[in-house]
């Protein structure tokens, strides 16, 4: 053994301390908090009461349901568009496709707050001008209506994430051996046959990765939600993260908000284990 015991701990301990102090300890305290009626200053133990109230709290249930709906819709759209983009930019290796790749990826560089404001401008000012010049009512008041407000966040998120997911698909597409594709071409395979029978099956692991990444990210979405609609109108576009934030730091029901945070944790964990199980089965 080249590394002695005390040396081993010197290497490992700093990282371990950070994880314990910043994640593990707060998480354990958080579980306790969720059984209290803490308002940030005083708290007393109330058992499972927070959870019982949560499951009857229509605003909470609405935000949870909205988050699930949002996740499903955006996961589908992002993966569809991301895959389409990946097929476009790998269709041939030239400058034009490299530029496209950059363009598609660019929104992913920008933080959620800035993205939210950019799209607030588009949905209010640009859409209004568009609706005015085309004489279409469709473009008016997108962010002041619950349904279109929801789609506004979806559009923003799709715009942000598709380029990211594209990169994952691209890396899997590039690892398909060129001679497989050439051999198929020599055998007279059409473009769509190459796509369906050679490219797509090779992309199976990319699907699981992308699905999980988009799902986890959309469950935790907060900043885009804040900057675009701030949950409005009337908390109708408030997703789970924002619900937790507002309950804890606006209404100061910290124990109650923490219980919602624990439920969020269970949702994310469930999704991750599903993904793990799926990819294990796929590998067999």
């Amino acid at each position, binding site marked *: 053994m*080249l*590394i002695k015991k005390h*040396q*081993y701990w010197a*290497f*490992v301990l*700093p*990282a371990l301390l950070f*994880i314990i*102090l*910043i*994640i593990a300890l*707060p*998480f354990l305290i*958080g579980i306790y*908090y969720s059984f209290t009626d803490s308002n*940030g200053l005083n708290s007393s133990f109330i058992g499972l009461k927070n959870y019982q109230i949560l499951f009857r709290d229509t605003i909470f249930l609405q935000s949870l349901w909205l988050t699930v709906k949002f996740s499903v819709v955006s996961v589908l759209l992002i993966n569809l568009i991301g895959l389409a983009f990946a097929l476009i930019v790998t*269709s041939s290796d030239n400058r034009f496709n490299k530029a*496209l790749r*950059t*363009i*598609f*990826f*660019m*929104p992913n*560089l*920008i*933080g*959620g707050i*800035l993205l939210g*404001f950019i*799209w607030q*401008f588009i949905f209010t000012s*640009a859409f209004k*001008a568009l609706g005015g010049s085309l004489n279409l009512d469709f473009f008016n008041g997108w962010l002041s209506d619950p349904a279109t407000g929801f789609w506004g966040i979806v559009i923003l998120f799709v*715009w942000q994430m598709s380029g*990211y997911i594209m*990169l*994952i698909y*691209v*890396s899997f597409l590039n690892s398909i051996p060129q001679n497989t594709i050439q051999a198929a071409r020599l055998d007279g395979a059409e473009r769509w046959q190459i796509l369906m029978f050679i490219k797509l099956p090779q992309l199976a692991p990319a699907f699981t*990765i992308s699905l999980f*990444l988009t799902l986890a990210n959309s*469950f*935790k979405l907060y900043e885009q939600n*804040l*900057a675009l609609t701030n949950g409005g109108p009337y908390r109708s576009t408030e997703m*789970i*993260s924002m619900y*937790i*934030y507002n309950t*804890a*730091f606006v209404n100061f029901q*910290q124990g109650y908000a923490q219980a919602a*945070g*624990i439920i*969020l*944790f269970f949702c994310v*964990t469930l999704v*991750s284990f599903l993904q793990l199980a799926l990819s294990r089965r796929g590998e067999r």
Partner: protein
Amino acid sequence: MLQKRSRKFISLTIFSIIGLFWVYPFVIVVINSMKGKRGVFQNPLWFTKDFSLNNFKTAFQALDFAHSFFNSLIITLGSVALITVVSAAAAYAISRVKGPFSSIIYYICAGTMLIPFQSIMIPLLSLFGKVDFLNRTSLIIMNTGLSVSLSIILYYGAFQGVSKSLDEAAALDGAYPLKTFVFVIFPAVSPMTGTVIILNAMKIWNDYLLPSLVVNKDGMYTIPLKMYSFFGETNSEWQLALAGLVLSMIPIIVLFLLLQKQVMTSVTEGAIK
């Protein structure tokens, strides 16, 4: 032949339109940031006659840009440096010493990655608030704690790929483990160091939620924080808000254009590994 060429032309046209559509949000933000209030109102979709760069001056001052840029930079650099050192060291040890501790640490990292920030932010804040340890330094420490798990896992994979004979050769030359690590093994995984730096820097530079909870002093504000409060002050003066957005986006876009290839590989690697 002709058919093939025309097909190529059609697909090129379609792809160009998609590309233009995708950058258009950026384009109109830039266009409207260079207008007066009337120009934004008249036609937000394209250029109008009134053109001025005064908005940038106003936004620069309102964002206290030099200052907020400096804060963002210090917090990002500090966090990334700490994350890199701490996680590389830990990953090195657990990749070289196999045993129950190493696997436990690896699983702790994988497990803590599952915990969403929203599930720990309330106790984390009250913990640090109680000892009144907030603002810049505290932000660096929290960022580090939140990022080491993923970084250790990334580094672990990279160190696994470095042959142990390299360690042994260095040991035979009389190097201590620390010396071996710093001068032999760590340089051998520099592509992964690039990935870890880029992934964390992007996340921390753009972060809003954590800084909004931790920063409570004037003069400690980062760019996203300042942009959020500036936006609230400009209502209905879109040209000012947009100039602020453009200013806030410039640093990261410039850096991206310089390091494009590296950034895209890092982002892909971070997702796949």
